């Protein structure tokens, strides 16, 4: 069975989804979903172990050899991303049942879990496949389920947010489709590895340039890279809190993965960064994203908005690392993708717990929570510190690598700006901490209890991961470095 792991990675959640429809009973469905997701998690771990020794695993679907058939191609990079996605999804699911019971009407809970599984499938599919068009198909699976999941939010604004996301997402997908089409037209193949070998021959043509631009723009829409980010905050803010926790930690990572994959291993670094001015473009956008998004985050009243905007800012950090187009820079980016998943997962899950108790997401309603929900708030504080980049948290590690990478490239000012940017995080995190710890609970609100175990366990799992990988970075750094190295191996 080990030989089939690559496909099982995707098939397990995919097949589980329709099966849920047969199970019907929400509680049962939840357990089943949890099972499927954790299976996917285990598979991804096994896969990662395999690729850390053997360089890449190729799996020919339908027994047709690429480029004629569809190929699944696992290397260090996508094994790493798959691990992040399936891991976060599993941890988040632990809390799902409790939170969903309260936020979604009984008759729709089963559907919720199906959609959740489907979006998981979509993301994993995008990451593991080695075929350009297959990416598009799974992209659509993940997006369609995402739209519906977001629309399940209680607030009516969820609907509008979801619709905006649908429009933006579909435009993005169509752009990607155009990009793929042009690539296909110039090379006659859809297989990524094959594309990588055949594109250089036609790299000079205007068509290929166009193809790249369209593909990248489409991806950046999904990535919510500033200034294409405006669909994200509302989508995160009004979705069911579990969904927010899941997406905030994973969805941007998937888009980032596509960016890396196509830029480095398909178009090749020389094309992307010497033929086209991607370097400066991404650098500028990234930095702008960091500063503007963080500044906006400071002025939000809805705490979900605060962290949503901070997500946009964090994407900025990733993109800065990307724009360095050096091994160090890429390592930093990958590390940050991993670390950011941990931070945001922890934070949004903690928020979910608070929403479960308090039923509101406005900072004003956090008054006095420091005493009423000590453990949850403590989690928020640690997550916040990690976001700021305080030593002994993962945030520090990624900052460290990013800044070192920038300095090594001789971009001192970038390094400075990156650090300055993290100061903005201090402000918006501390606003929350102060409200929670130094303000007495509002007269109107009756005191709330500490969140139930169903929340505390996963939240603290993630929080301790934040600290653990902030102290013992061997694992994450090793994988990230190896992945980055392999990419540059492909690129040259």
């Amino acid at each position, binding site marked *: 069975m080990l030989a089939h792991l690559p496909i099982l990675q995707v098939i397990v959640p995919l097949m589980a989804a329709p099966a849920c429809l047969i199970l019907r009973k929400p509680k049962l469905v939840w357990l089943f979903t949890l099972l499927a997701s954790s299976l996917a998690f285990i598979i991804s771990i096994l896969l990662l172990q395999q690729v850390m020794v053997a360089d890449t695993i190729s799996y020919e679907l339908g027994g047709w050899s690429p480029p004629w058939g569809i190929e699944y191609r696992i290397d260090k990079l996508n094994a790493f991303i798959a691990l992040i996605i399936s891991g976060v999804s599993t941890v988040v699911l632990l809390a799902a049942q409790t939170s969903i019971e309260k936020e979604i009407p009984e008759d729709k809970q089963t559907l919720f879990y199906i959609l959740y599984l489907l979006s998981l499938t979509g993301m994993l599919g995008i990451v593991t496949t080695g075929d350009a068009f297959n990416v598009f198909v799974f992209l659509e699976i993940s997006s369609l389920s995402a739209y519906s999941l977001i629309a399940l939010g209680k607030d009516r604004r969820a609907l509008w947010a979801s619709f905006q996301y649908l429009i933006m997402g579909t435009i993005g997908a169509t752009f990607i489709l155009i990009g793929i089409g042009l690539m296909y037209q110039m090379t006659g193949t859809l297989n990524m590895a094959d594309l990588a070998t055949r594109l250089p021959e036609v790299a000079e043509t205007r068509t290929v340039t166009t193809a790249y631009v369209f593909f990248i723009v489409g991806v950046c829409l999904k990535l919510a890279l500033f200034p294409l980010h405006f669909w994200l905050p509302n989508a995160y803010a009004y979705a069911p809190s579990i969904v927010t926790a899941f997406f905030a930690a994973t969805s941007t990572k998937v888009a980032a993965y596509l960016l890396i994959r196509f830029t480095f291993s398909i178009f090749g670094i020389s094309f992307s960064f010497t033929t086209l001015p991607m370097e400066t473009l991404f650098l500028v956008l990234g930095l702008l994203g960091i500063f503007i998004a963080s500044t906006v985050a400071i002025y939000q009243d809805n705490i979900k908005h605060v962290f949503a905007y901070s997500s946009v800012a964090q994407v900025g950090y990733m993109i800065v690392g990307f724009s360095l187009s050096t091994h160090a820079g890429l390592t930093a980016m990958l590390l940050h993708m991993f670390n950011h998943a941990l931070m945001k997962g922890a934070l949004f899950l903690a928020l979910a717990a608070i929403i479960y108790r308090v039923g509101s997401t406005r900072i004003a309603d956090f008054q006095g929570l420091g005493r009423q929900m000590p453990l949850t708030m403590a989690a928020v504080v640690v997550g916040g510190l990690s976001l*700021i980049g*305080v*030593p002994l948290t993962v945030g520090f590690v990624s900052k460290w690598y990013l800044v070192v990478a920038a*300095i090594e490239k001789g971009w001192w000012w970038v390094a*400075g700006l990156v650090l300055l940017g993290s100061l903005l995080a*201090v402000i918006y995190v*501390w606003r929350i901490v102060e409200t929670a710890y130094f303000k007495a609970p509002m007269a109107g609100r009756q005191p709330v209890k500490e969140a139930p175990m169903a929340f505390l366990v996963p939240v603290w799992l993630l929080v301790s991961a934040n600290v653990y990988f902030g102290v013992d*970075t061997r694992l994450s*750094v090793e994988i990230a470095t190896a992945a980055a190295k392999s990419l540059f191996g492909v690129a040259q």
Partner: protein
Amino acid sequence: MNLSLETLLQLCILLPVLATIGIVAFNRHQNLREAVSIFTSLFVFYAVVSIYLGLQSGEIISVHWLQILPGLSVSFAVEPLGMIFALIASFLWLVTIIYSIGYMRGHNEDHQTRFYCCFAIAIGGVMGVAFADNLLTLFIFYEVLTLSTYPLVTHAGTEAAKKGGRIYLGILLSTSIAFFLFAILGTWVIADTLDFTQGGVFPEDANTTLLGIILVLFIFGIGKAAIMPFHRWLPAAMVAPTPVSALLHAVAVVKAGVFTVMKVGVFIFGLDLLVVLPTTQFLLYLAGASVLLASFVAMRQDNLKARLAYSTVSQLGYITIGVLLATSSGVIASSMNIAMHAFGKITLFFCAGAILVAAHKSNISEMRGLGRQMPFTMVAFFIGSLSIIGLPPTGGTWSKWYLLMATLETEQLIIMAILMLSSLLNIAYLMPIPFHAFFSNMPVKNGYGVSTDKVQIKEAPIASLIAIGIAALGCLILFIYPNPLYELASAILEPKQSTHGN
């Protein structure tokens, strides 16, 4: 008990943190809880002393914890400068604990458990800073210290406390992330090591302008050293309960700051390099300016704690100057001043606290004639002031003396003038307080005068008094018997004292 020095070293850092468990456990029973604190501080002091003896007998003590980033690990080693800091910190922590028991109860503050917890963690941080063997380790514990003292500053939980806390954390965290961390990373890339090395780590051919900029980043980044314009957090932190102020201003935070400055100056740049850097002169003047300005501001403060705070700012200036002069006597002066100022200032703060508890007074203008009511406290205050000013028979004399020597050696006459002037200013803003306390009458309260003859003695709680006594005594002893301190200080620069275990 016969624990290896390495173990003791680690215990110094871990024990205070572990103590929090005990403190929380005994949340209900005050006495047990305080007992835990005292025992811990006693043990830590014992450990430090035995490490000190080990160091004297030429042993090389170093501990290596886990590796955080490739080539960068959390590791500790003992060297004289750190030794001085550790000795003072652990000793004065003991004293402060004793004092604060009296204070907190006399003032019956709430959340005392949280108070003692953070206190303990803070000391753990200080020990970590003191024994850190590389910049990363130092930085980590530096931040631990910042964060653990934040709840202490905002202890009261009032609006004012919150505001103070905001400034405190804002400045310390921002400077440390934006400048300090940046400088560290720069160092890492240029020298690709962060280990403290005798004579500096930078390669010969390194670009001096760049290094100059990095030096500036360091000095500004180490906000705890409170060099203007990044000193605002210090007065802001005055909202904290007095023991905290004592800890912040005499022992933990500010000293950690100047200590870091010294470490960077001596072991990252190295004195020879410091001299040639283009920015050193500029920083010297900046420090000088900070000394003078702070003194002037101090004179205008009526709130006693605020005045002391600004006096601290100026005193820290001295220490920075000492390093930047980049001569052996300068370094000696600075390292001694760390000790001297610690004792002097803590005495003063203890007194301030005692006055607050006993007489409920915080403004200097109200303290006329207080000497009759609290003679003991006021005498102690007098001694402390002397030490700060640098007059015999107190320890402060020595550090001032060496500092002036250093300025002479390097012909920094302007700096020398500044030092002279500021000493005069010290007299001007400290002496009046005990003077008025003894030689002028109680202010006239609502209509009828209070008879100045028979005011009954009303001192602070006994625990506090003991603490005050010890501290004040310390000032005197350091004058009569400064040799061990001096030996340590002069050992800092001896190359044979490698700071590396391996």
